[in-house]
């Protein structure tokens, strides 16, 4: 096995982060009712860098109460005004982009290269997108006959609960907060316990923008703060991104309250490389190689991580040689160093889990093509959670081909025909993302249509622009984020059925 490629740059300065953060409830900083805080550990070095409030039911109830107080006026705020405030949030984030990118890197462990180029720019654009679409949004009206008119008007659902994952702490929070606020809802947000800090740094910056109670953030542990939020009978909706068991549990709670939910529950995304990819050794071939290596983006901690490479057997050698070479060239190092390409896994338990999958892969007889072990970094990173980007070759029935490892691990297998590629691609519990790479115009349309997944990237991968609907098929959940259709997941339809006929119907 080759050695790890290391970053050469010095880390940039650490941003100033407070020793501890309270909850943000009703427009104010509120100490946790328990008086307790928990340490937030940076994956960079395994050391605590700040503390978060340990929220409980009392705090959650306080936040829901504040949101209910804010709702009557927020729900009637004009679209123009809501839009203005969302744009203001975007502007503030843009002004503080570098600071927030550094905080995000410390909180989550991902490379600064990514928080600068992806997380923060997407956060900013996402707020602007939802600020814009509500200005062009219209309800519908239909004339049933000359005396009867039906008006279908949008009304916000009310106070919603939003549970945020740790893989893109600010971006995933934005995916949920922006459409909810745009739709006129008030929200109580519970960030993941691994990454409770960056969102509070953001809240400090935007604390005065929104009316008190419109946006509330309560930190804490899932069973102590997440559960009271998910079970509260005072919420009109719960939105969740996470894994299947908690997804089921939240739906179970929602069924008791008869409220809707949206869920994004992960995947095991196939990335299919057709034979024509290697027809020429050109820019497109180079792009396809990069597309295969996208499994290492965000250390593989992406629900759409292209964790299964399906490559035509005729091009396996020429293609994978380049993929392995490119993977081995990924620079590991301090996430705050500007040339580091891949940072640390987000937490110790995540790190241990990924290592356990490396063992399962080897035990199951998968062939290790590169990586396959932890990356022993030094210079203060000894206790961070670093894993070498790993490629296994095997078959689709292996556990490493079926389970979301959520680490920088990809499994490659070959196919002989398009039918076989589709059979392998669809042989999974999940259906979130997929990739299709081809130079053949017919395949470019037909193959994506046959893949059972909500998002198929065609000749690209892992881009997340606003205005492209994103969500799952199968056990990957439901709801479509990133798009104006998400507004309808936060709204009711009020139908006014109006008669302009002066005459009675004649029944009675």
């Amino acid at each position, binding site marked *: 096995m080759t050695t790890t490629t290391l970053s050469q740059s010095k880390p940039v300065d650490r941003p100033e982060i407070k020793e501890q953060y309270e909850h943000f409830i009703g427009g104010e900083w509120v100490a946790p009712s328990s008086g307790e805080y928990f340490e937030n550990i940076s994956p960079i070095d395994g050391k605590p860098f700040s503390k978060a409030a340990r929220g409980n039911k009392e705090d959650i109830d306080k936040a829901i109460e504040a949101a209910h107080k804010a709702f009557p006026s927020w729900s009637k705020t004009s679209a123009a005004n809501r839009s203005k405030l969302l744009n203001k949030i975007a502007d503030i984030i843009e002004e503080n982009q570098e600071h927030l990118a550094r905080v995000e890197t410390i909180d989550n462990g991902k490379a600064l290269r990514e928080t600068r180029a992806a997380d923060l720019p997407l956060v900013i654009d996402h707020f602007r997108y939802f600020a814009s679409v509500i200005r062009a949004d219209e309800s519908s009206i239909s004339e049933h006959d000359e005396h009867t008119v039906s008006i279908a008007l949008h009304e916000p659902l009310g106070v919603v609960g939003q549970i945020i994952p740790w893989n893109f702490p600010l971006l995933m929070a934005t995916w949920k907060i922006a459409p909810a606020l745009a739709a006129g809802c008030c929200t109580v947000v519970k960030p993941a316990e691994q990454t409770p800090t960056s969102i509070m740094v953001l809240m400090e910056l935007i604390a005065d923008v929104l009316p008190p109670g419109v946006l509330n953030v309560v930190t804490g542990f*899932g069973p102590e703060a997440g*559960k009271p939020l998910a079970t509260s009978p005072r919420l009109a909706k719960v939105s969740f991104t*996470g894994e*299947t068991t908690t997804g089921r549990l939240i739906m179970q709670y929602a069924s008791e309250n008869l409220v809707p939910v949206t869920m994004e529950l992960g995947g095991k995304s196939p990335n299919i490389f057709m034979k024509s990819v290697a027809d020429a050794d050109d820019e497109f071939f180079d792009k396809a190689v990069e597309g295969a290596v996208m499994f290492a983006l965000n250390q593989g901690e992406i629900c759409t991580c292209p964790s299964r490479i399906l490559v035509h057997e005729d091009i396996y050698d020429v293609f994978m040689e380049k993929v392995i070479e490119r993977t081995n060239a990924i620079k590991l190092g301090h996430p705050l160093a500007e040339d580091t390409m891949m940072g640390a896994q987000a*937490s110790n*338990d995540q790190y241990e889990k990924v290592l356990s999958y490396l*063992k399962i892969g080897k035990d199951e007889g998968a062939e290790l093509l590169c990586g396959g072990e932890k990356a022993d970094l030094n210079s203060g990173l000894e206790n961070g959670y670093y894993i070498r980007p790993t490629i296994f070759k095997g078959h689709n029935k292996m556990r490493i081909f079926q389970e979301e490892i*959520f680490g920088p691990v990809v499994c490659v297998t070959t196919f002989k025909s398009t039918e076989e590629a589709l059979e392998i691609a669809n042989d999974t519990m999940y259906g979130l993302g997929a990739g299709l790479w081809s130079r053949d115009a017919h395949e470019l349309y037909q193959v994506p249509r046959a893949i059972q997944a909500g998002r198929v990237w065609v000749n690209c991968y892992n881009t997340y622009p606003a205005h492209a609907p994103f969500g799952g098929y199968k*056990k990957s959940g439901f709801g479509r984020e990133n798009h104006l259709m998400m507004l309808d997941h936060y709204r009711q339809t009020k139908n006014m059925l109006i008669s302009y006929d002066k005459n009675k119907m004649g029944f009675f």
Partner: protein
Amino acid sequence: MTPRVLVTEKAKNTIDTLRKRFGTDLMFHQSGGCCDGSSPMCFEKGDFKVGGSDIWLGKIHDCDFFMSKDQFEYWKHTQLTVDITPGRGSSFSIEIPMGIRFMIHSRLFTDEEFQDLSPVKEAEEAIQSE
């Protein structure tokens, strides 16, 4: 017969602590999918409603252990050991506030073991037979 799920001593101690703290029996459901997925979730018994889509793999330290059936199809050739590791998790699993997380180690059954595995049950049947 070879059991499908084992538990380490450390994990047993954690289960004992949690049982005492919550004053109730506990259960496990193996999760799939992203973020904190592919980890065993520990709940107060009955808090998570198992149903026709779940399978019962056995008991660990007197706690039922369940998994969804479609996931089990891909897991059934491996023996699972429930262990604990320091960490945060991010789910409703009840050990998380202790700063530790249940996790799974897996091992392939040998051909011999595979012929004589402890039987699985429909989840609902396993609950009723108690």
